[in-house]
């Protein structure tokens, strides 16, 4: 699903990604960890075609990111759904509209949109706020809308950037269960997170640890590293 080989990237003069090699197979569940400013978001942005690596080879869901051209970008983004760290919901649109938009751009019929949006709204406990504009939502509610928007399209790959930052323990746990469920149906999931609790809820997931743009072995004390049973692929260890 994701194949990065020796990817380098500079942002504003500094090297944001250094020789990153990462392979994620279809159906894997991967946690991306690392201190603040390590390059987690940058790596995810590369994966959804928002940033182009300076060098290396990159392929996501069969799309060659190094040769990405105008028309291919929408194609890539229809296969890959993203939960952004800063949510990126439309403040003036309702919860329903914000979630439906991901289906509308894919040309789904409105009957089907209605059914599918209602289902994710229920799954994320947003039913009460369905028709409220997103600007009137609490932080956690907005985050759930962003998550719902990524889930509603049934993508091949979900990239989730710190999706539990504004959720309490119970909701976070529920969310991880949802992601795991998607995962068992074949969706590949890459989730950046700081939260040690979250890592412990998905012990079967692989942990990829970034430090200053480089993939490193996870620190020994972290739950992920203790529970991680798969070898860390790539990185300069």
């Amino acid at each position, binding site marked *: 699903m994701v194949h990065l080989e020796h990817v380098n990237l500079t942002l504003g003069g500094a090297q944001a990604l250094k020789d990153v090699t990462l392979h994620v197979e279809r159906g894997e569940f991967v946690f991306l960890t690392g201190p603040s400013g390590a390059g987690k978001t940058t790596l995810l942005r590369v994966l*959804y075609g*928002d940033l182009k690596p300076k060098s290396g080879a990159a392929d996501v869901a069969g799309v060659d990111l190094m040769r990405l051209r*105008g028309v291919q*970008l*929408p*194609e*890539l*983004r*229809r296969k890959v*759904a*993203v939960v*952004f760290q800063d949510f*990126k*919901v*439309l403040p*003036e649109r309702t919860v329903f509209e914000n979630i439906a*938009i*991901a289906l*509308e*751009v*894919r*040309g789904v019929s409105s009957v089907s949109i209605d059914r599918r949006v209602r289902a994710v709204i229920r799954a994320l406990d947003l039913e009460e706020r369905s028709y409220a504009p997103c600007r009137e939502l609490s932080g956690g509610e907005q985050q759930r809308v962003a998550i719902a*928007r990524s889930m509603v399209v049934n993508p091949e790959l979900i990239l989730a950037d710190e999706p539990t930052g504004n959720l309490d323990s119970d909701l976070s746990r529920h969310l991880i269960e949802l992601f795991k469920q998607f995962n068992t149906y074949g969706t590949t999931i890459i989730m950046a997170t700081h939260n040690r609790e979250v890592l412990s809820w998905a012990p079967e997931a692989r942990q990829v640890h970034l430090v200053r743009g480089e993939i490193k072995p996870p620190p020994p004390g972290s739950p992920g590293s203790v529970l991680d049973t798969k070898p860390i692929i790539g990185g300069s260890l």
Partner: protein
Amino acid sequence: MSTTKLFLRGVADMRRFPLPQLCTLLTVCMVALLAGTGLLILHNVQTEVLRTQAQARFQIYWKVGADLTAVEAQWADLKRAPGIAEVSTFTPRAALSELMRGLAPRTSGGALTGAEGNASSGEDFSWLEGDNPLPATALVSFNIPPDEQPEPWMGRMYARLKGLDGVEQVTYNPTQLTLATGWIALVQKAAWPALGFFALVVGLVVGNTLKLMMLARKDEVEILSLVGARPWFIRAPLFANGVVQGLCGSLLSLVCLKFLQSWLRSVLDVPPLFLKVEFLPLWQSLALVLATTCVAGLASLIAARK
């Protein structure tokens, strides 16, 4: 989602920034109104000039003391001549009194005012009536046939009139023609820069507004692109917005222009001007609407690209 649906969504989205939308609509309307006013002036000047240009005026002087009955018969013939537009005839006596009027203080408004002025100041030239040395004269206007070159045609007509019985001299003014041609040249010289200028203003106003509207909505555009929307999905609603703005604005401006024209007519169609300001012909009205809509649509497309 079908293009029609996207367009409808664009129109529906206009409610979201009602004030800027209204402002833009008004601005478009006003700029289109300015362009329309320019066209109106142009059209009316053109009409006026074309009317003048197509006519040739000859002044015919008969011999002093010619037989007035014979001359009057010739006048009657002249009035029936093909292509004739206007004939003013003067007996020697009428000519003298007309001449005296011509010398009286006159405004730039022309002979008509002079006549009025004299009437109002109650002038009386009877004291001049002695031994009248003036000939019978006629002022004749012809419509130049559209398929003829004006200059040679006037030369031939001059020869024909000169050949009439008892005619002493014929004068005509070729510079009048030059003048008309000059006017048209002037109008054309001024028209294109002026219309270009108006188009630039329309483009700038609409483009700038839509660009800023884009800026205010750039999050939305970004998010649409991030969830996989194709460019057209993002641009179509904006394009619809621009087109609707252009269309409504220019239609509204036509309504305003109609009022302006009625007002101008009521103001200008009075002595001494008697200018009948006409409304734009249909094709020009349509061109105005079309041009504004196109400029607005184009500006919205440009504004919608990154």
